[in-house]
């Protein structure tokens, strides 16, 4: 008798986090006049305890590739394997659960919610978890303190500098203790001091065994990477 399908592997468990992108392609406006092939047959691997960097000029498709790997964007072709399981085949609901349990995102455009203070922004990802938010408040404050923002925890995020905002975003990505961190140009709009804090923090996370995937054009961050992939015109140029 066939085993009943009980949903994807990462329904409950956290992944071990070896990520493989296999022939990933993304074409925007497919079949229309303004069709754009953003990424073409990209292959890459990111392992736990490593920083994997994706480098390349602006507009080369790094963000699109990162979004596809993080399940924020459905590929036109190809698949993403996590510990050998094809997560691109997940339904929308399972993808949400996968992101919730396993992935922390840091965006190039920071993407904090306005009219909220730093602490509340950090706590947002916990809202969709079955947890008592009050118990995580201390943890969120500690994260902000580690990122040098203990005195800014109750500031409205609009009152913070770009660098401080990005540090809040890093804390937000880590509050759920994900195994995978996807950071898209995390140092793009960040001052030097903040960039150093974030870079140091990523090193610490690597030591903790997290899988860190970073797209960057900043050499300092790329230098930290254990593995680097270069992209050009939507294709992998080298690794």
């Amino acid at each position, binding site marked *: 008798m066939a085993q009943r399908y009980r949903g994807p592997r990462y329904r409950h468990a956290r992944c071990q986090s070896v990520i493989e992108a296999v022939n990933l392609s993304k074409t925007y406006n497919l079949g229309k006049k303004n069709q754009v092939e953003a990424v073409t047959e990209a292959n890459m691997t990111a392992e736990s305890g490593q920083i994997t960097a994706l480098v390349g000029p602006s507009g080369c498709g790094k963000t*699109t590739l990162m*979004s596809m790997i*993080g399940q*924020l*964007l*459905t590929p036109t072709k190809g698949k993403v394997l996590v510990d050998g399981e094809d997560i691109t085949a997940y339904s*929308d*609901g399972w993808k*949400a*659960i996968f*992101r*919730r*349990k396993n*992935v922390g*995102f840091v*965006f190039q*455009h920071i*993407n904090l*919610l306005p*009219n*909220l203070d730093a602490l*509340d922004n950090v706590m*947002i*990802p*916990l*809202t*969709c*978890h*079955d*947890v*008592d*938010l009050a118990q995580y408040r201390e943890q969120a404050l500690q994260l902000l303190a580690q990122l040098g923002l203990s005195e800014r925890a109750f500031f409205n995020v609009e009152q913070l500098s770009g660098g401080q905002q990005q540090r809040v975003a890093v804390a*937000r990505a880590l509050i*759920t203790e994900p195994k995978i961190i996807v950071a898209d140009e995390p140092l793009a709009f960040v001052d030097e001091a903040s960039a150093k804090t974030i870079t140091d923090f990523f090193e610490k996370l690597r030591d903790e065994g997290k899988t860190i995937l970073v797209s960057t054009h900043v050499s300092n961050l790329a230098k930290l990477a254990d593995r680097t992939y270069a992209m050009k015109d939507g294709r992998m140029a080298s690794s």
Partner: protein
Amino acid sequence: MKRFKNLVKYSLNCIQRYKVRTLVILISLGVAAAVFSSVAFLKDGLVEEGKLSLKYAPDITVQGISSGRQTFIDTSYVGLVQAAGVTAVAQRIWGYGNIGNSLVVIVGIDLQNTTISQTKFVNYTYAFPLESGKFLDPQSNNTVVIGKGVAELLGAEVGTLLTMYTESNLALQYTVVGIFNSDSSIYNGDMILMNINAARTFFNVPEGKVTDLLVYVSDIDPDLKAALVNYVARDISDWPNIRIVTKDVLLKAQETTYGDRSGFFSVVWYVLLISAAVIAFNQTVVVGHESKFEVGLLKSLGFSTSDIIQIRLVESLSLGAIAAAAGLTFGILYDSILGAPVLRDFMMGWATLYPSFQVPVLISAQTVLFTFAVTIVPMLFATVIPSWLNATVDPDIAMRGARA
């Protein structure tokens, strides 16, 4: 459960966070709910009042017609109404009269009505139950029984002498012998009852003529009664120069004037729908980008489509409920305490004739629930559907679209 609590907390936080949006929604929906509820309460009150005023009305009213206009009817018609099923025929003379600055309805009732078989219908004390004093004496032509509202307006009580002026400005005096308190506040507010002969003198109606004839049929099973009324009405309608008005027609006329299909109510309904559409437009277009970005971001942080819908659902329900409650409160205060200024004149054309008359307001659970529904449902459509549409696209697309 903790997760649901977190989502609810987030929803309520959104209401606080988007202050301008919240204020715009609360004001616009609140005004719509207030307009709708105050009209609906007043309409329900008028419809109910109409029903009460017709509770003891005759099954058929027969009026005279001359040159297409209503005129007195000859009392000789009484003898003709002998159709099977007719239990009583009463004569009535009525019209308007002045007492000081107040206009009242003076009704002369036929206390010795032509009773074919004795029934309760022509026992006027059912329609006009006395609060104090006694009812009219058929032999007395200078006594009146007045409504409770009239008594309050005039400061009259049993034994008070009322002076009323006829059309030819002749002052006639009547002694108040009783004060009635009917179910109908219209009757209480403006009606004075007197013997039909007294009314004949007051209105100078020629002998052998009355304003109308009141025909009562057997009080049997309602379905059979309707058929019997129609049969009698058809029979009477063959006579020349008369007009037949059945109780059913009067009820339908009232429903047409004040009911759900009345012109004014329809206008208010359209206004409400337009308001709701404007709010929906505001929500989807003006707040659309902000909302789209937030939906994309939340999804990227692990929220599912159903989480997003739950958040928006709670937000919309809360805003809609607050707006509806505020609107209802204002509607009730406007109708009950302020007496529905402006609206009252629209709803009751004759209201200006009776400045002392309290507008009938009926606050029913049905209308309250309906007001909540018409306030909340457009809000749900305006917020939940766009959120659902945004939530079903990839988070990256939603965020890029919002930034574009």
